[in-house]
């Protein structure tokens, strides 16, 4: 087997395992398709389904435990066809069945590719698409997240425009002012709008339906912020923080070759992609996309008559159920890897805090997501099968959804912040050239946050009519979370104290993270106080809080991490000057965007309203809303600097001349750059903790964990 570069034995095994799983799945799906089709006899595509079933069945049997290059690749063809057909059916009919078809077809597509990859492990497909290598899978999640961020951010800018200039057409694509008054078209756009809007509802195009005359319609506004949040949380922050950094860092930092279950790992990415496609398809179904907020409160979300959204709402639930499967695969992988596969000497309390955070987060995911899944299942049944879990009419209970959702939802928000805390805790010591302050305290603080996160969900429901006594207990537990958070904040400060601080780009973002998280956390205290929350609940005060913790926290953490590990990921450095420009512009425009939202909130400005001018007491805030929008656009376009810098340096950036450009201790910097399959030339042995910087009486100010050097016992 002469290859460009050698391939690891276990990768062969992995690919082979996947081949077998896939054949088995083909056989099972084949049988199921034939059986179900004969049983249900769907009026549409009966023959097609039969044909597909038989094909899959035969194909599966023929390839069972035999490497068949062409036979094994065949599913790629009809899988793709099936996926496309299903998607098309699902959107036009619209039917959930179609999307189920899509998922099946999509898996066949992946399977077919997998088979190709098995025969050309070094082709593009093998190394970039169906990779079983944790580093590539991490990069895949990163790409997914960044691309989705363009969407999520774009939506934000779109509805920000509406908030600043309510019902005013967008520049360029919108109709001209004169046209709106006089009625006779001036610009070319006007003419277009004229003819588009003359058509009747059914054959109007997407724009005319959602943005008549180029202004965001109220219903569309609701889908915009709903999808903005859904995408940002489930398809940006989670894929990047957990999918990308989790995958890339865990095996490298604990010194092992790969994840415990590489096949599961690979699948978890493609399942995420599939769920993403389903989520985005929602924009094209009749009735528009989900519009009940990312919290999807019932009975609004449960009943199309009330949202005015039918399929979109269904797809929202469906897609998140699928995504749940992906995260599940991920978290099982992470926990198993961390427990079982640490390098010799890598005791639990020698693990970098980033690994601790990912470990804890994986456990949170493992326990929180299934709760969301069953809640979503009930919601889906309410939406499609006429059950009435959340509809009062049928004896249902609307508040049950809120309890289930937030029982997942609050742990979820800590899922969004803990990894960012972990990343910051890696970066601060390196660039202060100083051990992290209070390592164990940091670990236990994260454990405490994760634990308390389970008993505070009621703080989202203070005004929901929930028993006031419960409200008080939830208030107390919520406020207690300030304590472990205090421990973390002050230990970060302690790490800076007496350091020798270098203001590199990752460091700047890490510092930004700490300060912005503190603002976001402190605003949380206001809401935790039940009487105060009675006033600021569902106002922009909450929106300000959200974005300080989740943009100032999670996203700043993400940027810090990307600038820091980019050299290890791609073997090149990102341009530091542009990095600093990116940081300062982001930092300033971020605060200009979100700080004024506190003031709006104090003024009583409700969230989720499409047009503040409908309220007399909000008219005074319009100027502020415009300012926020302008800052938001600056913030948005600033990210393009990052985008360009990132993509350019991936290919053209300065090559790193050392495996350890930051002179850091953790294991990933011992590995070659970029790390090959199997990561390490030989399994490393760990001799002390990860934060031994500036140990007195050494010429170098860092001690890699693999180095047998004199370090005070206990570290």
């Amino acid at each position, binding site marked *: *087997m002469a290859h460009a*570069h*050698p391939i*690891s*034995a*276990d990768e*062969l*095994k992995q690919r*082979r*395992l996947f081949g077998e799983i896939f054949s088995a799945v083909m056989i099972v799906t084949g049988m199921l398709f034939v059986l179900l089709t004969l049983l249900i006899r769907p009026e549409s595509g009966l023959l097609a389904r039969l044909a597909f079933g038989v094909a899959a069945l035969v194909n599966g049997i023929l390839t069972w*435990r*035999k*490497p068949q290059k062409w036979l094994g690749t065949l599913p790629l063809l009809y899988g793709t066809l099936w996926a496309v057909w299903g998607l098309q059916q699902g959107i036009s009919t619209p039917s959930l069945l179609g999307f189920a078809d899509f998922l099946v077809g999509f898996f066949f597509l992946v399977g077919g590719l997998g088979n190709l990859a098995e025969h050309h492990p070094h082709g593009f497909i093998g190394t970039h698409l169906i990779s079983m290598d944790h580093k590539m899978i991490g990069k895949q999640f990163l790409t997914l997240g960044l691309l989705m961020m363009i969407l999520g951010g774009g939506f934000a800018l779109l509805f920000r425009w509406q908030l600043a200039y309510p019902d005013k057409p967008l520049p360029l694509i919108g109709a001209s002012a004169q046209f709106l008054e006089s009625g006779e078209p001036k610009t070319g756009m006007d003419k277009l709008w004229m003819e588009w809007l003359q058509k009747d509802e059914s054959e109007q195009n997407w724009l005319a339906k959602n943005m008549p005359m180029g202004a965001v319609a109220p219903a569309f506004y609701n889908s915009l912020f709903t999808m903005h949040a859904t995408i940002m949380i489930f398809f940006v922050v989670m894929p990047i923080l957990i999918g990308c950094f989790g995958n890339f860092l865990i095996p490298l930092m604990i010194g*092992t*070759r790969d994840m*415990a*279950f590489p096949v599961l790992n690979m699948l978890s990415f493609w399942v995420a992609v599939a769920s993403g496609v389903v989520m985005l398809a929602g924009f094209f179904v009749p009735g528009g996309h989900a519009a009940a907020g990312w919290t999807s409160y019932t009975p609004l979300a449960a009943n199309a008559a009330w949202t005015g959204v039918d399929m979109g709402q269904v797809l929202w639930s469906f897609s998140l159920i699928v995504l749940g499967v992906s995260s599940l695969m991920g978290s*099982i992988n992470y*926990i*198993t890897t961390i*427990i*079982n*596969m*640490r*390098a*010799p*000497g890598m*005791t*639990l309390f020698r693990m970098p805090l980033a690994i601790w955070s990912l470990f804890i987060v994986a456990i949170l995911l*493992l*326990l929180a997501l299934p*709760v969301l*899944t*069953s809640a979503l*299942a*009930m919601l889906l*049944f309410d939406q499609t*099968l*006429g*059950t*009435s*879990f959340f509809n009062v009419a*049928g*004896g249902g209970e609307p508040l*049950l959804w809120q309890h*289930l959702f937030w029982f997942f939802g609050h742990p979820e928000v800590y899922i969004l912040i803990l990894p960012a805390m972990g990343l910051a805790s890696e970066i601060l010591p390196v660039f202060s050239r100083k051990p992290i302050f209070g390592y164990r305290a940091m670990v236990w603080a994260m454990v405490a946050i994760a634990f308390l996160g389970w008993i505070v969900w009621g703080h989202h429901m203070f005004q929901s009519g929930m028993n006031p006594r419960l409200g008080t207990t939830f208030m107390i537990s919520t406020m207690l979370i300030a304590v472990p958070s205090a421990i973390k904040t002050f230990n970060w400060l302690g790490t800076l104290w007496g350091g020798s601080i270098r203001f590199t780009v990752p460091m700047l973002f890490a510092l930004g993270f700490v300060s912005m998280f503190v603002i976001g956390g402190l605003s949380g205290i206001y809401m935790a106080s039940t009487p105060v929350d009675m006033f600021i609940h569902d106002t922009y005060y909450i929106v300000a809080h959200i974005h300080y913790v989740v943009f100032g926290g999670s996203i700043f953490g993400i940027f810090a991490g990307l600038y820091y590990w980019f050299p290890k990921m791609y073997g090149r450095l990102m341009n530091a000057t542009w990095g600093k420009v990116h940081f300062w512009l982001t930092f300033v425009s971020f605060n200009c965007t979100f700080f004024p939202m506190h003031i709006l909130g104090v003024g009583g400005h409700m969230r989720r309203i499409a047009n503040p001018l409908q309220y007399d007491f909000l008219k005074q805030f319009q100027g502020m809303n415009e300012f926020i929008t302008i800052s938001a656009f600056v913030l948005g376009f600033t990210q393009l600097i990052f985008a360009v810098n990132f993509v350019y340096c991936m290919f053209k950036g300065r090559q790193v001349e050392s495996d350890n450009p930051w002179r850091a201790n953790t294991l990933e910097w011992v590995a*070659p750059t970029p790390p090959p*399959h*199997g*990561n390490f*030339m*030989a*399994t490393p*042995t*760990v001799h*002390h903790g990860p934060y031994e910087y500036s140990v007195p009486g050494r010429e170098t100010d860092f001690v890699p964990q693999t180095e*047998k050097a*004199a*370090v005070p016992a*206990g570290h």
Partner: protein
Amino acid sequence: MPATAASVSPQAAYEWSSRDSGEVLELDHFSGNPPPPTPALPYGPGDDGDDGEAESRPVGNAVLGMLLFLGTDAMFFAALIGAFIVFKYGALDWPPLGQPRLPVMVTGANTVILLASGLTMFQAYRRIRRGAAAGLQKNLALTALLGTTFLLIQGYEWIKLLGYGLTLSSSVYGATFYTLIGCHALHVAGAVLWLLVVWWRATQGRFTAARHTAVLLCSMYWYLVVLLWPLLYLLVYLN
């Protein structure tokens, strides 16, 4: 790109070529077990001497992964059960007027059947641990049989209930019933399928006293399904 230590070993090449010869590969055999731990080097100064820890792994990856999966599954049911309790004890009268009562006796018998299958499963595992392949096959078959019976009886009861007008949409009573019990039934069905695969492989003599992780995993899942049931029976069927 620098070369890696883990280039193709002859043994790997052998496995590659041998893949047509129907040679069996145990699941745990290549679901990414950790690298052979290199013997810990003598402690250097400043070591607190617990360099050994990472090697001592109480359970293998596959088993640990399964345990974690069972954890999630439990949480999944916990949420459904929670919802059920809210409705049951929140309702004025349960089951609501005009809704049929559930078959307590038959299902009671069914419960016994399922519990029995748990025992046979345990037997199966004990046998293979002693390397008694025959006993393994017999007990696996028995377990699958009991499981199927359980499903059939349930299916029959469901058809009757549907006849009495208890449907998903008839009331939140019906909704919770079919969702909760249905989810469990699906689990049993899946478990039986898996069990059959394991049984079939057992008939091929694939398991030995040394290597039978597949049996262990399947049995773990089966226990969850079995042990969940009495709880559901108490909650859903008995008042």
